[in-house]
């Protein structure tokens, strides 16, 4: 089992990460999540301009063994989608924190970040 975490990212209980640059947030799934899912085979199309509330499903991810939702860590509008990952979902398995990012979101309210975990808290949360 692997559970690599990266500093300076925010984490959710449903295993997404969020990188914040000014008002923009990049969303992906954690190393733990990709390991739990196994080989990822499908990611549901995300519409640019879609407005989401914190915790709502951004997309659906499917692996050889399970289907689950990827929830947005913060409320906001989807401004960019990683088309490369849509084409080749195996990138998420290989680089969940780098090239495997899923979408970029215009953050509505930075107060919501308080509800998220930092790397140490997430590490502790997912310790078996």
């Amino acid at each position, binding site marked *: *089992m692997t559970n690599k975490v990266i500093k300076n990212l925010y984490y959710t209980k449903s295993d997404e990460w969020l990188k914040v640059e000014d008002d923009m947030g990049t969303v992906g799934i954690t190393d733990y999540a990709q390991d*739990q899912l*196994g*080989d990822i*085979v*499908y990611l549901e199309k995300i519409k640019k301009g879609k407005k989401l509330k914190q915790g709502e499903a951004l997309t659906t991810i499917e692996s*050889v*063994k*399970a*289907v689950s939702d990827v929830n947005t860590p913060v409320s906001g509008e989807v401004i960019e989608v990683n088309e490369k990952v849509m084409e080749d979902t*195996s990138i998420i398995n290989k680089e969940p924190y780098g090239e495997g990012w899923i979408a970029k979101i215009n953050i509505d309210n930075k107060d919501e970040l308080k509800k998220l975990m930092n790397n140490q808290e997430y590490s502790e949360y997912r310790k*078996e």
Partner: protein
Amino acid sequence: MKLIFEKSIKDRDGYSLPGDLFKEIKIEDCLPEYAISKKKKLLSEVSEVDVVRHFTKLSKLNYGLDDGFYPLGSCTMKYNPKINEKLASLNNFTYAHPLAPEETVQGSLEIIYDLNKLLCEITAMDEYTMAPAAGAHGELTGNLIMRKYFVDRGDKRHKMLIPDSAHGTNPASAAMADFQVVEVKSNERGTVDLTELARLMDKDTVGLMLTNPNTVGLYDEGIKNIEKIVHHKGGLLYYDGANLNASLGIIRPGDAGFDVVHLNLHKTFSTPHGGGGPGAGVIGVKKDLIPYLPTPIVAFDSTHKKYYLLDLGSKSIGMVRAFWSNFPVLIKTYVWILSMGPDGLYNASETSIINANYVLAKLKKYYKPAYDRYCGHECTVTGKEYKKYGVKTLDIAKRLMDYGMHPPTIYFPHFEPYAEETIMVEPPESESKEMLDKFIEIMIKISNEAKTNPELLTTAPHNTPIRRTNDLVAAKRPILTYDDELKLKDELKYKDKNIDF
């Protein structure tokens, strides 16, 4: 093993016709040019004995219920008694045509009519449709019936509640019927969280789709309250029959308050399942919903003593398939119910529940149960503690094949935090204690192997005709025809060297 196409030898054939009676003619002489395909057809040129040997060999590589234990959880892979097959293949049935005049097929109609009455008695429902061709088709039919019922009453309900433990087909069927799917979380006992249900069940909600025992194999003791909550808000309660095998003669869904009941005759009622199908996902309803059933149903005219097809009229959701049913499946079901009798049906469920609890009790020291409590006719354990040895549940399942057993259902159900790395074992009533003991012994052996020699598991299976398959390629680029395989092989030569067979 070579494919039949690879065994083809040019100009070899498997027939011989007397030349003085049959002359060879060219296709161009009988058909206009536009009707002849330009594309070369892949037909193998083989002799009769080549064909027989090829398919006999293939059948020997297969593993089915007639070979051994098949403990697929939530699937009820029980033995298919041969008397079912024998009676269903009588000429009077196999030569019957769905468009034959009613008076010439009275016997067939009588079976459908009688079976309807028997299923009504077993499940406490008022009427069944035999039309749906399989489980998910039945679910869709059930959803469409509920939809029409509310539309007719001018009630604009559009949400359907489904527990997180449900079969994936439940939300899919509800979505196909244009309902918005709302998930209901399980509580710490693995059953429906009543507070959550009460919060979600509102006047916009059609009702709840419930499997009981649920897909973890646990009986939902909250059913009385569930029924109250759903009906209090004017909703309907839908029963997914995947796990009826735990209930025959013990509890009837209709008595528990279900309004629509779905049964898989190919699970509970011993007709072939999976590749041996087809199935039959019949739907039973309470009185108020009868007008909405797919049309027609078989009725009995008591004055003229004759069975006939009754058109249900304009309220019916219409036809859901060509003709009336997968009829041979109904005959097999009828034969099974009559050969078992009421006590036999009760014994079947009782035995399956005892079997599952026996397996659970014997395995729980080695594989942590998802929920440590008595189960219904199937038990869910997990392979979590072997992760630290680098072994996943998938590897445990693959290793079982080396010991000549079909693996149980794995990774289903799958929800946090209880049901992860799940192994779901359903040992139906047709399995003996000796068979269960053999399975338990192998599972314990594998748990030791996982600790001492994990590689044996991660590289399994070793003794099967085909070693570990590539799930990723199978999901992303399924090879369904010989053409697909040739194309993929060709592509791989140039492109992706990482994918191998």
